């Protein structure tokens, strides 16, 4: 039917290599989510504060992250910072780019969630003698995470998908990088990338499943 002979055995032979790449992909995605969440909480708080500088920096971060392409952010992290003499290796540039993006999007989610939590909660916590930090950490933040959980899950899946952009800045160790390395040597584009697509789908499904398990475990009462 097609004027093309598929060489699937080559793709299957490369499967171990691609699985190692998948591991790196998950690693980058997880680390970028952890740091992204930490930064996002800080940014969300800055956006709700009255300090002009904090508000300005936080808003700039959020608007830049949400209004420019992720590919652009990753490319900037490697070559843009490189023009300043700041050398981030491809792995670090990818991580920085995705973390920047994650933090920007999740800060907005958190800000919306924080506004949905009545101020009475904070006032009650303060009146019980908790300091403002303790009040936030023990009372408000858990509720914030609970409300933001579905968007956070989406963001995690996007983080996994964004790791594929690492090959544009010379990363050869994640799943897409490995696949491209195999591709440029053998030109069996369809076979290798079809395999990679299946692996990405499985990783995304695993993330969603994991998130559902975590939600069931953490948010039940």
């Amino acid at each position, binding site marked *: 039917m*097609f*004027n*093309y002979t598929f060489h699937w055995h080559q793709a299957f032979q490369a499967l171990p290599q691609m699985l190692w790449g998948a591991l790196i992909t998950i690693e980058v995605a997880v680390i970028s989510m952890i740091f992204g969440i930490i930064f996002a909480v800080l940014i969300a708080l800055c956006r709700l504060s009255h300090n002009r500088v904090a508000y300005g920096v936080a808003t700039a971060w959020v*608007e*830049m992250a*949400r*209004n*420019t*392409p*992720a*590919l*652009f952010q990753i*490319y*900037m992290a490697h*070559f*843009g910072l*490189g*023009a*300043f003499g700041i050398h981030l290796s491809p792995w670090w540039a990818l991580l920085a780019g995705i973390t920047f993006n994650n933090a920007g999007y999740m800060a907005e989610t958190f800000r919306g969630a924080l506004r949905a939590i009545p101020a009475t909660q904070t006032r009650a916590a303060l009146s019980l003698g908790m300091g403002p930090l303790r009040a936030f950490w023990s009372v408000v933040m858990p509720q914030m995470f609970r409300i933001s959980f579905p968007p956070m899950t989406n963001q995690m*899946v996007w983080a996994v*998908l*964004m*790791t*594929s*952009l690492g090959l544009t800045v010379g990363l050869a160790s994640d799943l*897409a990088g490995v*696949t491209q390395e195999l591709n440029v040597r053998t030109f069996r*584009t*369809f076979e290798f*990338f*079809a395999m*990679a*697509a299946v692996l*990405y*789908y499985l990783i*995304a*499904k695993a993330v969603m499943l994991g998130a559902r398990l975590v939600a069931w475990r953490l948010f039940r009462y």
Partner: protein
Amino acid sequence: MFHTALTLNDLLFLAKGAGVTLAITAIAVLFGTVLGTVFGALKAQASALAMAPLTFVLDVLRSVPLLIQLILANAFQSIAGLGWSPFIVACVMLSLYTSAYCTEIVRGGIEAVPAVTRRAARSLGMTWGQDMANVTLPMALRVALPGWIGLTLGVMKDTALVLWLGIIELLRSSQILVTRLQEPLFILILVGAIYFLISFPIARLGGRLEQRWREND
């Protein structure tokens, strides 16, 4: 003071790239929205079992990186001998990608319309089509519009990935200029600013609409 080798010609070159970006965005959003509305209405109406194959396909479109989808589609059309230009491949894949997300937005919008309202419309003698056109969709639109605007902006940013197929859109144009002029920082910041200027006003508009239309509980 500030010297750059960037000429007016180069700015026009960037503008051409921006034009390609916007063209691909417009086509993808148009077809994606039409498909998404059809799929969303179907999913809101039919049983989950009947919709399972469609749900699976749309799920795949949302779970595989867009870059991989573009590469795979390009490889597939060459194997199948379809002879599509990279522009067509990009438009087709982005339309499908948009429709996958739009389906969820439209479905969410339709399901936000209270079932009692829809049943009332049907009990007044309206057909399913009349109910959809005159009652449900106008109300669903209110709920779906901010999400749809967000999706449109997302697609505009994702068009940067089509540079992989050899299409000279905005980001690739900037890379060409960087290669020739070796002013990476300036040109990249300029391009970032262009993306920002295209995206920010529309995002703000969406935000304002969302605030205005939010139900005041």
